[in-house]
């Protein structure tokens, strides 16, 4: 059934269809509506699960460690400062190989205080050993929810996952979505039956002390599982498409990349706006295309090499910045290509920070700047885009 609903409601309903055993969440803008809808479902008997009220994000994820280790299917959601407060627990979850799924609503990190969207929060957690997949629209974020439970809970993977969705832009938008059919989801995603569980009758230890003779091997196994996740993400994506009729590509997706000379690489909700900009530029004869990163961790190195092999110049557009160097995706992409035959120049733009709107005009400007590299070479490899220089003048008091 297709209906116009708020993005957060769509996500909550997708979670409901996954039949989680335990939900533990703490509200924080702009993720709050997801929490509200889930608690309503539980209170109204639409969702039969243990719903734990906690006093912080640290507790929400910590409580799920116990629940997941005891064999429960577990879900949480947070954003920004909440994710920052979970930071220590993120590594515990992945190190214990617990398949917790989290909707990470992307929002800027303070200071200065901003409740608005960028992707600095998830980017800061990219080394935490969690799968991170970024959604372009509400439907994709909904559809990713059962897919990531299935991937995370696979005995060959046992790695936690984040569905990353842009705060406000996707959580608060009203748009038509196709609701998931709970019976079909049950068929697609069977109950979680882990081989090793916490059980008083058969005691085990999770996340135990590892001295230097063991620690490396734990990390090695985690690393291998994440590598295996690449194939699994593609496989599960295809399985989902066969059952539900909706596909989004695998680790990446491409748009208008045939004969593209200028290639944009980006992720999240800005992909939709970028597609519109690409169409507009194509109609004017500009050979521009788009690569959408779906899976940021694991990083789709091989797929990107194939998709971008014929581009003459490449630009990343991303909503994060690693102060002291450049933006994360730019670094990753350059690193992926260094030992390959691809020699197209790569430049990067940090855009949309703290909720600064990215429209077609801004994408066109980025394409224009990137095209200039073909004639003039690289002037700036990395740029924080759309800085209002007038604001930086002494004595400026405007808005």
């Amino acid at each position: 059934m297709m209906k116009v609903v708020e993005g957060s409601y769509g996500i909550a309903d997708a979670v409901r269809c996954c039949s989680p055993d335990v939900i533990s969440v703490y509200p924080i803008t702009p993720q709050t509506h997801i929490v509200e809808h889930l608690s309503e479902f539980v209170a109204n008997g639409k969702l039969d699960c243990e719903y734990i009220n906690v006093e912080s994000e640290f507790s929400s994820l910590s409580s799920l460690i116990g629940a997941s280790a005891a064999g429960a299917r577990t879900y949480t959601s947070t954003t920004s400062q909440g994710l920052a407060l979970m930071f220590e627990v993120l590594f515990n979850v992945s190190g214990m190989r617990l398949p917790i799924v989290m909707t990470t609503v992307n929002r800027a990190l303070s200071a200065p205080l901003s409740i608005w969207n960028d992707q600095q929060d998830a980017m800061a957690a990219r080394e935490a050993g969690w799968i991170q997949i970024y959604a372009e629209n509400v439907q994709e974020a909904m559809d990713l929810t059962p897919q990531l439970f299935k991937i995370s809970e696979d005995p060959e993977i046992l790695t936690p996952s984040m569905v990353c969705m842009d705060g406000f832009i996707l959580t608060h938008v009203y748009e038509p979505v196709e609701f998931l059919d709970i019976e079909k989801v049950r068929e697609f995603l069977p109950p979680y039956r882990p081989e090793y569980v916490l059980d008083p009758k058969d005691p085990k230890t999770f996340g135990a002390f590892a001295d230097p003779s063991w620690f490396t091997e734990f990390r090695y196994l985690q690393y291998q599982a994440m590598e295996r996740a690449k194939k699994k993400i593609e496989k599960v994506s295809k399985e989902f498409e066969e059952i539900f009729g909706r596909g989004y590509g695998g680790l990446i997706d491409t748009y208008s990349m045939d004969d593209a000379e200028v290639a944009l690489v980006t992720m999240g909700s800005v992909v939709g706006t970028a597609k519109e900009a690409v169409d507009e530029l194509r109609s004017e004869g500009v050979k521009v295309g788009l690569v959408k990163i779906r899976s940021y961790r694991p990083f789709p190195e091989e797929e990107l090499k194939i998709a971008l092999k014929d581009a003459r110049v490449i630009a990343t557009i991303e909503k994060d910045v690693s102060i002291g160097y450049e933006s994360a995706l730019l670094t990753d992409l350059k690193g992926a290509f260094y030992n390959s035959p691809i020699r197209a120049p790569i430049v990067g733009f940090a855009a949309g920070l703290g909720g600064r709107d990215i429209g077609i005009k801004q994408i066109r400007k980025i394409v224009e700047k990137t095209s200039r590299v073909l004639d003039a070479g690289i002037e700036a490899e990395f740029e924080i885009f759309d800085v209002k220089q007038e604001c930086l003048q002494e004595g400026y008091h405007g808005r």
Partner: protein
Amino acid sequence: MKEIRFHGRGGQGAVTAAELIAIAAFEDKKYSQAFPAFGVERRGAPVMAFARIASEPIRIRSQVYEPDYVIVQDVTLLEVVDVASGLKAEGMIIINTDRDAKNLKLKTKAEVVIIDATRIALEKLGRPIVNTTMLGAFCGATGEISLDSMNKAILSRFSGALGEKNLAAIKTAYEGVSS
């Protein structure tokens, strides 16, 4: 694709109005999108909300800068906000006011439609909440959404007597601008 911008004050239901447009347009078998200009809203402060209606799925996610239609729920906003900013010359602006359109001194080439929505809302709803009344004016003046679909959208949000009162307000506004 048609793009709509709502101007209101916090508490006047501009965001709800945008959502109702999206729901009603979908009832009309069109694709739609609605979202607020996300902020830390306070009651009475100027707020904006946006909606898009199209025959194809809507991919763009930016705010609306060059609207086809502007809906102003409170005429006092004209003193503090450039409500006609970016409005297309062939577009339309619908303003809730009891004043004459030519006294509003709007800087736009677009068609200006006025409706005394506050009076209609007080009469039909007993409260000066004009968001739904303005939707009736929008349907009547633009023809973008059928009255029938708007009524369905309203009833999905407001049930019972309140729903019926809202339908009456919408009908009055619809007929007021259609004639």
